[in-house]
């Protein structure tokens, strides 16, 4: 993150009589709004997570301590969901990094139509996740009429019901399609801020393309890569619309991740207590990962 340069911190605003807008008065509305809409509900979520609380059974709301958490973390089914969440986020992250980096390197050259291509390539990131899901599910992955099946059969291969036979791989492919432009954009911007003279100096010293990449490009790229990792991890742990629109978490639990599980528990089964506990776990997981990556990020930007 950018550390705000504060060369003018010592300049005190001139004192005046009567009502004055103070910096604090300018900051508090935003702060208060965020506290009311994020911190308060989160603490309520923590509170609910200690109760057996089902909206379908009004009146009874016994305190059960950590039972919801125990239930969540010991039921093997729920461990599948936790694992799905990690596989989905991790798999997509790795693929978007590799494809995004390749695209960024390809676009970081001079060729006709480069600006147009760059503009067009960000499209899939801008498409509403539900639209992505619905279009992929129906028009591309459909076993009978889908485009991919037609490609397979015209190659003489049997058609594949992607979402039934390879649900997780299909969902990862779909979300990778969506997030690759993000990685590409950030990584390309990172590449373009590399001063030409550094590359020239390396070339004059007789560096091979690989050495050039390894010792000049890669170190410079670290920050952009870290931004991609941090932002995507946080976003991908929360993937919801894509699953809602394509597999609805199925078949079975094959593509159910934590957000989708919480949605089902809270809004289909009205199991507020269990959904809350899962919500707390998601927040903790996200924050631990984010804090860890943020620290990595600030450490490298300081060492530069």
């Amino acid at each position: 993150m950018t550390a705000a340069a504060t060369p003018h911190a010592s300049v005190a605003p001139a004192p005046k009589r009567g009502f004055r807008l103070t910096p604090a008065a300018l900051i508090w509305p935003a702060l208060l709004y965020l506290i009311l809409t994020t911190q308060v509900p989160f603490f309520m979520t923590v509170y609910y997570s200690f109760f057996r609380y089902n909206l379908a059974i009004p009146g009874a709301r016994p305190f059960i301590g950590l039972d919801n958490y125990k239930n969540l973390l010991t039921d093997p089914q729920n461990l599948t969901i936790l694992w799905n969440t990690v596989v989905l986020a991790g798999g997509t992250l790795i693929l978007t990094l590799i494809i995004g980096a390749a695209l960024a390197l390809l676009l970081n050259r001079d060729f006709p139509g480069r600006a147009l291509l760059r503009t067009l390539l960000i499209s899939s990131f801008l498409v509403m996740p539900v639209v992505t899901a619905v279009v992929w599910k129906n028009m591309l992955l459909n076993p009978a009429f889908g485009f991919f099946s037609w490609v397979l059969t015209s190659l003489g291969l049997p058609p594949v019901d992607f979402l039934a036979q390879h649900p997780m791989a299909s969902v990862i492919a779909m979300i990778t399609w969506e997030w690759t432009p993000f990685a590409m954009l950030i990584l390309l911007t990172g590449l373009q801020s590399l001063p030409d003279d550094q590359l020239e100096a390396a070339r004059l010293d007789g560096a091979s393309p690989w050495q050039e990449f390894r010792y000049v490009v890669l170190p410079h790229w670290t920050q952009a890569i870290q931004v991609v990792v941090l932002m995507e991890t946080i976003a991908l742990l929360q993937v919801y619309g894509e699953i809602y629109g394509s597999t609805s978490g199925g078949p079975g639990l094959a593509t159910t991740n934590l957000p989708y599980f919480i949605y089902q528990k809270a809004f289909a089964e009205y199991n507020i207590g269990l959904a809350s506990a899962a919500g707390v776990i998601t927040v903790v997981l996200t924050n631990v990962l984010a804090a860890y990556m943020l620290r990595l990020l600030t450490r490298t930007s300081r060492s530069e």
Partner: protein
Amino acid sequence: MKAQIRLRNALLTLVTYLIAAAFLFPLVWMFMAAFKTEAQAFATPPVFIFTPTLENFEKAMGTYFPALRNSLAAAVGSTILAFILGLPAAFALAVYPTRRAQGVLTWMLSTKFMPAVGVIVPLFLIYRNLDLLDTLPGLILMYTTMNLPLVVWMMHSYMTEIPYAIYEAAKVDGATVAQEFFGIALPLSTPGMAATALLCLIFAWNEVFFALNLTSANAAPLSVFIGEFKTSQGLFWAQLSAAATLVVLPVLIFGWVAQRQLVRGLSFGAVK
């Protein structure tokens, strides 16, 4: 040697174009289907050449307009509210930085990282008690929460770029904080405001989790409207594509226009 490099470059360009084509294909396929008849949309082998029809767009319109109105209201309303709350905060943090300013900024960023599932259950219950479920104000309030940290971060980043000498000159002339805000900070960060607003609009337009859980019929935006196609009309591909095209096109155009600012906003100013 030179010819070899030229050949290599041409090949790399070709590869780039091929990958780009593959990436754009799902969207192109959707756009094409929007102008086909249902039979053509389903045909195997797929139809690539056909006489375009506008019939699907006419059919989709009926259900599209109420959802469009809700999406517009939610996106514009939340962007305006996030600006009203966020601009003064960004200004204060940029121009009057205290020791705690960085802490406040980081905390605000952390709220953006808060998974929606961590707050949705109590929010749903609160909304139910306050009669905010399935209302536009309810949706606008949540989207404001989502976009407020972004507004503060982006605008803080743009406002710190305004040379401090300008503020000093104004202070010498006896300008008040309000005059600095309205007279200097806002006019000089207009391009930043435009970029931030575009991002807020895109995020609110594409959001689905809050929309799905806090609205049902009256206030349902486009994300919910498209989601419903998967069950009720999943087999009408052409009509679905027409509706999806109408939903996606405004955001695509916005995003293409603002692509440079996109990088800055998406990375919260970490990459410029």
